[in-house]
């Protein structure tokens, strides 16, 4: 066989009825023999459809003709194999938020209202994702056919918004209102089966049966999903009050309303006007325009583009089909599992069988968490090959060393690997604290040696630091970045530096928290301050989760290698590590983890400068890294801290936050802290470059 048969047969072609060639603009238009008009969305110059102002204007143009001469039926679908539509064109939001948002929204609403009012069956066929405005376009049609694999969702909440093209009233009118609100408040997608059971999709079928399904709908052979009883109940104000209260408390658990205003805006809108479509529509437009202007939404949109930016840098061919991971500890196991899940052949080596068994069990759990089907999970686990004898070394294109942080041990491992690795393969270390330049001396080919620093858990934290030392070749770094892209992680290129970028920034934050504890500030007060700032968890909880032994190791390594003073390692940290109370993994650290993740609820107040003492050293370290060219630019620093540590996304990242707060103000506050608490707060000289 010279080539796989399925490659020759190609992808299943999308059923596009009478549409043959490309049309002008974003829409293709054609009429079939039965008199049904087909409109296929196909945005020029993009592999993915988004709903822009132009798309809606184009649709309005076609509606003019359809209103004048009503067809038998109208079919709307996407001509892009990638899916229906990814949502609104976010690039236009910034300009829109300045002025005229309401007018533009109203124009969009008018188009969809006209589509909805068309006097013939309107059928939307969706494949892949129909998100945000794409979903709203589908909702304005009478019927929805979901091709198997289709999903529907409103991710607006992740951008600090709620649906703005009629979703807030059309979805609650179509399906059970609380289900509709849940979809909009969580931003989660409803996949094909769920979409059918909720009543979003009227028909689910394979692509090859789309035209038959359309004919059945036109012939009146398909029954409409009836709205549930509860939709009637929610026409009453008190019922909505009660439901809204529950939604508020659920939403607050996910995102504090003082930082994330969109969920509250949506809940209030529905609570007030849930029984009045016209008022909902007006309210949606006003509220969406208002949210667009918030710093939270602007910053979350910024985070969206930061992610896009990192993804763009992760494109290219990695030439890595087989990965060998040395060390099946927590990190090695996670890396191996994730790479296998993403399609790589992975061998996982360890001197002990127990950790490999544990890693496989964890891999199965990740498959489950990521909703893999049983056959997908089987294939992923088949690709993850236990390898005590290191057979995979000779076949691997990339070897990732994730052994304990002992330079001598790593040196010995590199010497062995050097004998067996195939020509052209890359050796990467997942070290988080050892100087790369030292390790590079022990690697057989330093040009093809680099750091590949993942964060735990790999399946949840998207960032990977691709670490260069002075001999790493550009080709190696490019391949490693492309490898990160291939396994759906986000690479940031950083230079060899104590703690690289992320741990350099994070360590003073963790250590300062411990110094504060030693000063008598309760750990719950410290953690609450960080959470109030917008961190996903407090520094004491984070230290426990990372592992106090690892924190201690990183802290000592940084103290040894950095010129700048760091907070002292406290006796309490040393005692904990010595006592084996190393945090979450031991069930006991600063917190008791035996009953799961601790919740540091407290009403007590800490010292006035508590939050600054925690956060500003992190910003200062970022400035230092920029000054020393450890990271490429401020945007990548922001992205790294957000995607590795969850740094308050609504603040747009540490550097963005520093600028928003005022560079001079931050520097002055640092100087002030230095005067009161010691030279570790002395502002970096790099601040003057930013002023």
């Amino acid at each position, binding site marked *: 066989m010279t080539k796989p048969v399925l490659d020759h047969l190609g992808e299943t072609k999308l059923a596009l009825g009478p549409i043959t060639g490309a049309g002008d603009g974003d829409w293709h238009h054609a009429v079939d023999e039965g008199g049904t008009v087909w409109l296929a969305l196909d945005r020029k110059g993009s592999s993915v459809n988004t709903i822009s102002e132009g798309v809606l204007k184009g649709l309005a143009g076609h509606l003019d003709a359809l209103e004048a001469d009503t067809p038998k039926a109208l079919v709307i679908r996407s001509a892009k194999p990638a899916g229906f539509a990814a949502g609104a064109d976010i690039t236009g939001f910034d300009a829109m938020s300045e002025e005229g948002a309401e007018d533009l929204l109203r124009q969009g609403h008018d188009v969809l209202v006209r589509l909805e009012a068309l006097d013939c069956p309107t059928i939307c066929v969706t494949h892949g994702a129909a998100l945000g405005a794409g979903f709203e376009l589908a909702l304005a049609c009478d019927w929805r056919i979901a091709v198997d694999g289709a999903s529907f969702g409103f991710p607006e909440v992740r951008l600090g918004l709620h649906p703005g093209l009629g979703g807030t009233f059309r979805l609650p009118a179509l399906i059970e209102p609380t289900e509709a609100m849940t979809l909009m408040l969580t931003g989660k997608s409803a996949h094909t089966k769920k979409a059918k059971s909720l009543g979003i999709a009227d028909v689910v079928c394979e692509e090859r049966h789309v035209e038959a399904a359309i004919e059945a709908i036109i012939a009146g052979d398909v029954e409409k999903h009836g709205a549930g009883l509860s939709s009637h109940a929610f026409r009453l104000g008190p019922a909505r009050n009660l439901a809204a209260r529950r939604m508020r408390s659920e939403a607050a658990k996910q995102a504090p309303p003082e930082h994330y205003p969109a969920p509250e805006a949506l809940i209030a809108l529905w609570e007030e006007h849930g029984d009045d479509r016209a008022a909902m529509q007006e309210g949606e437009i006003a509220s969406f325009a208002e949210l667009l202007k918030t710093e939270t939404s602007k910053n979350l949109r910024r985070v969206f583009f930061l992610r896009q930016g990192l993804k763009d840098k992760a494109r290219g061919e990695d030439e890595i089909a087989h990965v060998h991971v040395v060390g099946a500890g927590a990190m090695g196991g996670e890396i191996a599992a994730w790479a296998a899940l993403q399609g790589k052949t992975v061998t996982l080596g360890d001197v002990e069988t127990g950790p*490999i068994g544990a890693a496989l069990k964890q891999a199965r759990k990740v498959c489950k968490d990521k909703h893999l089907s049983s056959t997908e999970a089987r294939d992923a686990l*088949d690709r993850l*090959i236990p390898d005590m004898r290191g057979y995979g070394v000779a076949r691997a294109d990339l070897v990732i060393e994730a052994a304990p942080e002992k330079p001598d041990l790593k040196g010995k491992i590199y010497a062995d690997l050097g004998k067996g690795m195939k020509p052209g393969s890359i050796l990467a270390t997942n070290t988080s604290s050892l100087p790369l330049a030292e390790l590079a001396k022990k690697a057989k080919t330093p040009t093809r040696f680099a750091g590949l620093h993942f964060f735990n858990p790999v399946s949840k934290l998207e960032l990977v630091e691709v670490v260069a030392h002075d001999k790493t070749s550009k080709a190696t770094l490019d391949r490693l970045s492309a490898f990160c892209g291939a396994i759906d992680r986000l690479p940031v290129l950083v230079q060899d530096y104590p703690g690289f970028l992320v741990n350099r920034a994070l360590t003073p934050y963790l250590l300062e928290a411990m110094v504060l504890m030693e000063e008598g500030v309760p750990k719950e007060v410290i953690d609450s301050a960080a959470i109030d700032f917008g961190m996903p968890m407090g520094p004491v909880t984070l230290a426990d989760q990372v592992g106090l032994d690892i924190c201690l190791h990183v802290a000592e390594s940084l103290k040894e290698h950095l010129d700048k003073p760091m907070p002292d390692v406290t006796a309490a940290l040393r005692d904990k590590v010595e006592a084996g109370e190393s945090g979450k993994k031991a069930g006991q650290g600063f917190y008791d983890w035996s009953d799961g993740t601790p919740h540091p609820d407290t009403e007590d107040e800490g010292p006035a400068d508590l939050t600054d003492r925690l956060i500003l050293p992190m910003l200062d370290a970022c400035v230092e890294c920029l000054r020393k060219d450890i990271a490429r630019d401020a945007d990548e620093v922001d992205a790294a801290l957000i995607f590795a540590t969850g740094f308050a996304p609504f603040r747009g990242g540490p550097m963005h936050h520093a600028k928003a707060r005022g560079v001079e103000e931050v520097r002055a506050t640092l100087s002030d802290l230095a005067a009161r608490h010691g030279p570790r707060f002395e502002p970096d000289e790099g601040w003057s470059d930013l002023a």
Partner: protein
Amino acid sequence: MNDRPVYLVDGARTPFLKARGGPGPFTPVDLAVQAGRPLLMRQPFARDAFDLVILGCVNVIADEMNPARVAALRLGMGEDMVAFTTQINCGSGMQSIDTAFRYIREGKQDLILAGGAEALSHAPLVLRQGAVEWFAEMNRARGPVAQARAMAGLRPDFFKPVIGLERGLTDPITTLNMGQTAEVLAHRFGIDRKTADAYAMDSHHRLAKAQEEGWLDDEVMTAFDSEDGEVYDHDDGVRPDNDMESLAKLSPAFEKPYGQVTPGNSSQITDGASWVIVASEAAVEEHGLKPIARIVDSEWAGLDPSVMGLGPVLCATPLVMRNGYALDGIDLWELNEAFAAQVLSCIAAWNDADFCRDILGLEGAFGLIDRDRLNVDGGAISLGHPVGTSGNRIVLHLANAMKRRGDKIGVATECIGGGLGGAMLLEAV
């Protein structure tokens, strides 16, 4: 006759896992994948370089029709890898090697992956015929009256399933189960309980020593269960401290109360898979392989199912003789231990001048096989007998043991339920 040389290049198997009530952690294909991945990983050629995959499997489960093909795909050997499954009951794992051997000898192929896989703990519960018919009628019944009538045909014994494994281990022609055939042989050849128990004890001690010495390290690949993280790194039916006293306490398993075949001197019911790589001279040269043995010849024979245990005598003797050897020319034997009484009966038959004259056409007794040259590292009594796999394991282990001991010629042979025997002759390279 075309006699292109055929080599056994490498092989690996899972640990044999004793069935402990309820389905074990792996299906037949799971086992084949567990053994196959490290084996393929340690070869100097790519996984898709094979021409063919052949897998012996007796109890194919419903989710894995043609397990050879399912295994080949799960092992990443490529969509165009032709694969088929062979079944000759307890000889299936050797039949896969024999088929590979013949194809390569004829010049049809150069590189074949041949194995055996069996998960006896997954053997299904089989519904009684009456119950099957009742279910079919229920499905056909339309309307409440027809359904009520069909329902009335339900009998309580429909819910008493038949253990599929028990049926599989019973010969359909003579209706004797395999243990009973061993009782027949024990009686005919005068094998007493104590001799059989002593043989069984020895099997355990030999396997325990082989495990301890690391002689199985390249052969047995650790298996991992991702459901619970459990690690299986050795044949777990072994009882290193097995002694005559504890064996004597066991009751007969098949013919109570006077029989002498007990669970202690029978092979164990076990899950496991094994693969060997069979290659032509051209493939050996092309990939720079280092064969462990040359496959010289093979033979199959049939006899009355009630004495199926003598199968090895009927096939191995002509195989040895026609290749110009006598008993003393064979350095090492792997004779599958279905039952201690059955192995001992084979030895007795070979040493019985009348039997050898009458049945084998020899001039006198073939001779007495030295116990030091027979199953030197234990056998199915200590390892277990995953039926479709055992034939593959004995060939692989024969090759490995010959190499370790510096032996020149060896025979692997097995009895086969239903009244057959299979044998293969290997030569050191």
